[in-house]
């Protein structure tokens, strides 16, 4: 089988899994839909490995294969095929997406047991992975946009999975609306590019872009900025990030899926995929790099203050995606995608650990109510700490190599990029701090009642309630199920977290400056046309960067250790001292309030104005009322005749008859 055959298989398995679980929901018992869905993704992962093996057998310059199944549309000079593109970049993405998704599926089998919507859940999950794989395998903009929109729809379905929870349905709507903004940007960008280059296929478009556009051509910059609108909406970058923290309303494995494997990495992939355009439009690339740097700093500061465990990790995702966007925008494609991979490992791991803790807390998510879980949950403690170490870029973990490589590339570009790199290093310190804020607050300190109970062997139980609002719930379909799962007690969760913990620790080994260069080398055929191909930082400067990054990480972890363990209470004093700053961060820089004031309120005001004045007064009163008024006045005479009295009608009849008779009499004489 050729590499493209494997590419079609990568798409076919999740699609089949989705169909089987969704149509078989009535007959598939217990955990079976979960295993079917997991097997589908596992097979997709194997197919991705098959594609990898096949593509590695080819000479480097022939590693970009396009295969078309049928012509999607051919009209008016536009021809779009249902085509997939198998090249190192898409194979890399398929491996990361299907591999991490597979582990998340396995985790979900245990985590979602007892929920009354298991088959629906796994059908959505498979659909999500299928959409993401379609997105990364697309060979032209149309298929990419289809996958793009599918991902948005799947995220809506999964965020609102507990559909009787109001906060969850609102979060789903918010995510969908934000994503549609991005979809619109992407569609307009595709139209602009089609208009100028005459094709929507990636290969010919990028080859023709050089001739079609002068450097920094206005249309091209506009198209790239519109691509960025799409990428930023999907990847939750400023100012389109507000949906991602709210997406925490979905089940925890869904958060892991959105944050680690699918969805948010799509924007990074898109920028990497369209890198020939961005290199022709450096202005757009700079905008992207600046926004990436702003986002990574902004999100890291917010993660310092929020207290919801899942939201801390969510803001850390926004921040880490900011690093990736910065990376691919400064032409550090290999580094950006390497960070995408390591981030997928440790972020999925962190969410799985968080899910286990939330299970132990019987659904509560506030870290103010957690503490001392170290002895009660040793496995979760170890794996979560590994995830936090990788997130904090602790020396020799995977995040250490990937993050610092991005920053080394950024410095290497020189000039104003220095500022971005410094912002990146400051945020790296904040990252290490908030990562260990989670660890120290959740696992150290005095055990809370739930932890004590767990040490005695009982899983805590609370009456089901919404963790955000405290509203009482039941455990029927549409709300979380009655059982809570912790990693210590269910082997599928352990089976998923173990490999991820291992990868989060050692995956950095594939790309150690001066020693191994697997990712960079593997992706080279895709990016060798880059004009920055030969400007990679020297090994020496990368090593300096690693040392600096490692020291920053160690220092920040030490500070967190001091603040939370050696001198507990320091944070309370800080919070009182800098109440305004804390409120600013705790309220997420007031972005939600800003959007509320700028977009939602005016829209609501305009809507109620429309309802009151336009609809009621103008349409109902003037147009409808006016028309009926004219008819009413015009027909008043006719109505006056209709007395309803029988003799009136009889009289009229006779008078008419008499008049006719009289007429004929006069006429005939």
């Amino acid at each position, binding site marked *: 089988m050729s590499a493209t055959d494997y590419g079609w298989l990568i798409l076919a398995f999740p699609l089949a899994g989705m169909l089987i679980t969704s149509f078989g929901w009535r007959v598939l018992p217990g955990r079976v839909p979960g295993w079917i869905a997991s097997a589908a993704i596992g097979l997709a992962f194997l197919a991705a490995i098959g594609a990898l093996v096949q593509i590695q057998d080819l000479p480097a310059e022939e590693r970009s294969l396009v295969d078309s199944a049928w012509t999607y549309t051919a009209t008016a000079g536009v021809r779009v095929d249902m085509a997939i593109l198998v090249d190192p970049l898409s194979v890399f993405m398929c491996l990361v997406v299907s591999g991490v998704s597979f582990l998340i599926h396995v985790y979900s089998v245990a985590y979602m047991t007892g929920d009354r919507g298991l088959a629906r859940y796994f059908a959505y999950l498979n659909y999500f992975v299928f959409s993401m794989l379609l997105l990364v395998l697309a060979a032209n903009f149309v298929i990419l946009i289809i996958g793009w929109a599918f991902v948005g729809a799947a995220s809506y379905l999964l965020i609102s999975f507990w559909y009787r929870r109001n906060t969850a349905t609102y979060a789903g709507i918010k995510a969908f609306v934000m994503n549609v903004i991005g979809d619109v940007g992407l569609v307009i960008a595709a139209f602009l590019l089609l208009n100028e280059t005459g094709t929507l296929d990636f290969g010919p478009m990028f080859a023709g872009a050089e001739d079609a556009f002068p450097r920094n051509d206005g249309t091209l910059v506009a198209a790239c900025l519109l691509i960025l609108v799409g990428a930023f909406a999907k990847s939750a970058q400023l100012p389109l990030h507000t949906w991602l923290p709210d997406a925490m309303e979905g089940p925890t494995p869904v958060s892991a899926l959105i944050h680690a494997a699918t969805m948010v990495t799509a924007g990074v992939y898109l920028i990497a995929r369209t890198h020939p355009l961005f290199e022709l439009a450096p202005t757009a690339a700079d905008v992207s790099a600046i926004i990436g740097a702003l986002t990574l700093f902004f999100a890291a500061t917010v993660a310092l203050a929020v207290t919801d465990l899942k939201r801390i990790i969510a803001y850390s995702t926004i921040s880490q995606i900011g690093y990736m966007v910065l990376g691919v925008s400064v032409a550090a494609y290999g580094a950006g995608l390497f960070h995408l991979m390591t981030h997928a490992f440790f972020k999925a791991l962190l969410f799985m650990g968080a899910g286990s803790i939330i299970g132990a807390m019987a659904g509560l998510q506030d870290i103010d109510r957690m503490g001392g879980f170290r002895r009660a949950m040793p496995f979760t403690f170890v794996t979560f700490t590994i995830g936090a170490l990788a997130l904090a870029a602790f020396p020799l973990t995977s995040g250490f190599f990937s993050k610092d490589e991005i920053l080394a590339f950024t410095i290497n570009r020189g000039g104003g990029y220095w500022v971005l790199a410094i912002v990146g290093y400051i945020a790296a310190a904040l990252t290490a701090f908030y990562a260990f804020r989670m660890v120290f607050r959740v696992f150290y300190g005095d055990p809370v009642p739930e932890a004590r109970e767990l040490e005695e062997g009982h899983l805590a139980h609370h009456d089901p309630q919404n963790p955000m609002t405290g509203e009482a719930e039941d455990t029927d379909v549409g709300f979380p199920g009655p059982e809570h799962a912790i990693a210590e007690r269910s082997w599928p969760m352990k089976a998923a977290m173990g490999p991820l913990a291992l990868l989060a620790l050692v995956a950095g080994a594939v790309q150690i400056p001066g020693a191994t260069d697997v990712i960079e080398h593997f992706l080279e055929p895709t990016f060798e046309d880059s004009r920055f191909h030969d400007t990679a930082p020297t090994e020496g400067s990368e090593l300096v960067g690693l040392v600096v990054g490692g020291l920053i990480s160690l220092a920040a972890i030490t500070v967190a250790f001091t603040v939370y363990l050696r001198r507990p209470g320091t944070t309370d004093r800080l919070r009182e001292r800098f109440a305004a700053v804390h409120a600013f961060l705790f309220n997420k820089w007031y972005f939600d309030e800003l959007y509320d004031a700028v977009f939602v309120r005016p829209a609501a005001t305009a809507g109620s104005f429309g309802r009151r004045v336009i609809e009621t007064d103008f349409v109902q009163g003037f147009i409808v009322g006016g028309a009926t008024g004219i008819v009413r006045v015009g*027909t008043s005479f*006719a*109505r*006056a*005749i*209709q*007395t*309803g*009295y*029988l*003799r009136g009608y*009889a*009289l009229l009849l*006779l008078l008419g008859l008499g008049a006719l008779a009289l007429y004929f009499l006069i006429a005939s004489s």
Partner: protein
Amino acid sequence: MDVVWFLVLSAFIFCIGAAGVIIRRDPLVILLCLELMLNGGNLALIAFARMHGGEGGQIFALIVMVIAACEVVIGLGIIVAMYRNRLRIDVDEMTELRG
């Protein structure tokens, strides 16, 4: 006898019937008056038939009688239904068609 006498009588009966239909409020009487109108018409038909010596007018009068019988059946049915629904039998009470 001159046909004019018959026609005058016919018109007289017809006008009595028409006046009754217009003036009276009791549906039974209105039905009676309708019969008078029809019979006035019948009388005119038969008078002309006699004048012309043909039988078409007489046959036509017979058909009118049959129609009148049918109409009475329906009219009485309506009156009975009215009586079942309301106590007062008065056509001025039935003004649902007022515009």
